[in-house]
């Protein structure tokens, strides 16, 4: 299948909302029609054709050759198909996606994978703060799917996570898994202070022993069938995560300041 290729002409001068450039909105459009799509921005009106050189193809697969930290809302509410970004992204990459695949080869801004409910989002570089998190006023964060960051994540990764799996292969900022409702957050590098702050349910797996708050209580070291089954399921995505899960894990329950049915696992130091 020949993808639709959008090659960046030059670094844009203003922030751009790229939410119209998703497979389900481009399905029946010609390259000319796509070039004419107006992109929401700040001062000067622009259309897709002003920013990108278009190479026609099947819109089920969209490829951005060249990215920018000013590209916001790429893959907004993606339902199916795939988007590949050879470069950086701005805020809210893959926000609200419910299916399909997004791969970003650069870094991305805050709110990547915000409230996503399905599909797979992979960021090869670093992610900003509030990975998978809800925007102000929304009750739930990510509710399904798989979100992988090969680099590091900013503060409050997995805020209000409800379902699905977030994997950060490098470090995470302060308060990872804050206010988690359920779901799974894995951090393979160091993490900032107070992981799982006010979490209700859910699982946080940390490869490095964390600096836990006093409202997490020691429930001993265990070798659980769940950990080895999960390791086998995760191995194709991340061998490093599988390795961490294959060790005896200390289990801390919390946050006892909230519901207290969550858990933080880390290998016994």
């Amino acid at each position: 299948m020949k993808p639709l290729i959008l090659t960046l002409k030059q670094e844009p001068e203003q922030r751009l909302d790229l939410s119209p450039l998703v497979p389900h909105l481009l399905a029946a459009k010609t390259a000319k029609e796509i070039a004419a799509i107006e992109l929401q921005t700040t001062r000067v009106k622009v259309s897709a054709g002003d920013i990108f050189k278009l190479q026609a193809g099947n819109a089920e697969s969209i490829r951005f050759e060249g990215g920018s930290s000013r590209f916001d809302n790429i893959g907004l509410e993606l339902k199916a198909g795939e988007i590949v970004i050879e470069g950086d992204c701005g805020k809210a990459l893959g926000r609200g996606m419910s299916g399909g695949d997004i791969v970003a080869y650069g870094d991305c801004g805050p709110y990547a994978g915000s409230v996503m409910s399905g599909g797979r989002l992979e960021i090869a570089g670093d992610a900003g703060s509030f990975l998978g998190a809800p925007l102000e006023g929304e009750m739930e964060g990510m509710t399904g799917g798989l979100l992988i960051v090969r680099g590091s994540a900013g503060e409050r990764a997995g805020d209000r996570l409800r379902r699905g799996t977030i994997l950060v292969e490098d470090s995470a900022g302060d308060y990872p898994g804050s206010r988690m409702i359920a779901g799974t957050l894995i951090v393979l590098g160091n993490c900032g202070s107070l992981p799982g702050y006010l979490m209700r349910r859910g699982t946080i797996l940390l490869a490095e022993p964390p600096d836990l708050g006093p409202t997490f209580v020691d429930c001993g070291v265990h070798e659980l069938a769940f950990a080895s089954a999960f390791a086998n399921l995760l191995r194709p995505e991340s061998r490093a995560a599988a390795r961490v899960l294959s060790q005896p894990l200390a289990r801390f329950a919390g946050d006892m300041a909230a519901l207290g049915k969550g858990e933080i696992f880390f290998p016994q130091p």
Partner: protein
Amino acid sequence: MRAIKRNGVRIDDSFAEAFPMRGTAILITAPNRRWAQQAAATMTGFATSVIGCGAEAGIDCERPKNATPDGRPGVRVLVFSVSTDTLQSQLVNRLGQCVLTSPGSACFADLDGADRLQLGDAIRYFGDGWQISKKFGGKHFWRVPVMDGEFLCEATTGLTKKAVGGGNLLIMGATPKTTMRAAELAVAAMNGIEGVVLPFPGGIVRSGSKVGSKYKAMTASTNDAYCPTLRAAVKSELDEDIGCVLEIVIDGLTEEAVAAAMRAGLAAIVKLGPEEGAIRLGAGNYGGKLGPFHFHLKDLLS
């Protein structure tokens, strides 16, 4: 009835008549083979016939630890029943009483399909609010805290409505010793076929039944036509040289699996020959009008 002879063994021109059943498969894992076998054996105990046990069940095969979802040794168990509802209640009862209770066990779905039966979705309530749901890549698990750690159980398993129950072989020999030898070899050969179980003790049943009885309360009674001690007293099916009859009953997830098992059993008995083993082979049927699946012995001779 014209008999075919193979390697000196007489084979009746007859067929096994089998019935549609509902079937399912699960995989039980444990810290070692012994405890995986133990949980599976306990779960499939008292499951020889749907008439008295509600379900027919057995161990299909072992799985090495590199072929199970949690990397521990596993045993595949098949359970069959006459209706989806009965199968569901039998499955949950057996899972709850025999697998959940077995030290170190975990339980996984082992049959694909759109129709589902509850496993962990029913067992989770044992967790009394401490159960944990985990979803990943289309899989859904329940983690239930128990006294040795956690019971990990997949939420549902597949159900097949195309299962076949009641495939059978009647093994007739001169003495109990030779007949048993033939039956044991056939069981060993059939156990090598995936997708079938032999629900009776060690795969063998010695008290085959006929429909009806002289007693009103009984719906089935001894198959007197095949009882050697009544050979001259009733309208017997047995020849003068037969002193013992053993039966193997086969339940399978598919018609093909049952046929493959019968083929393997027949081949093993024929290979053994009449001196050391069986002198005649037959199959049980009801004239062909009750069950839709007919396994003709002559078609299964390879």
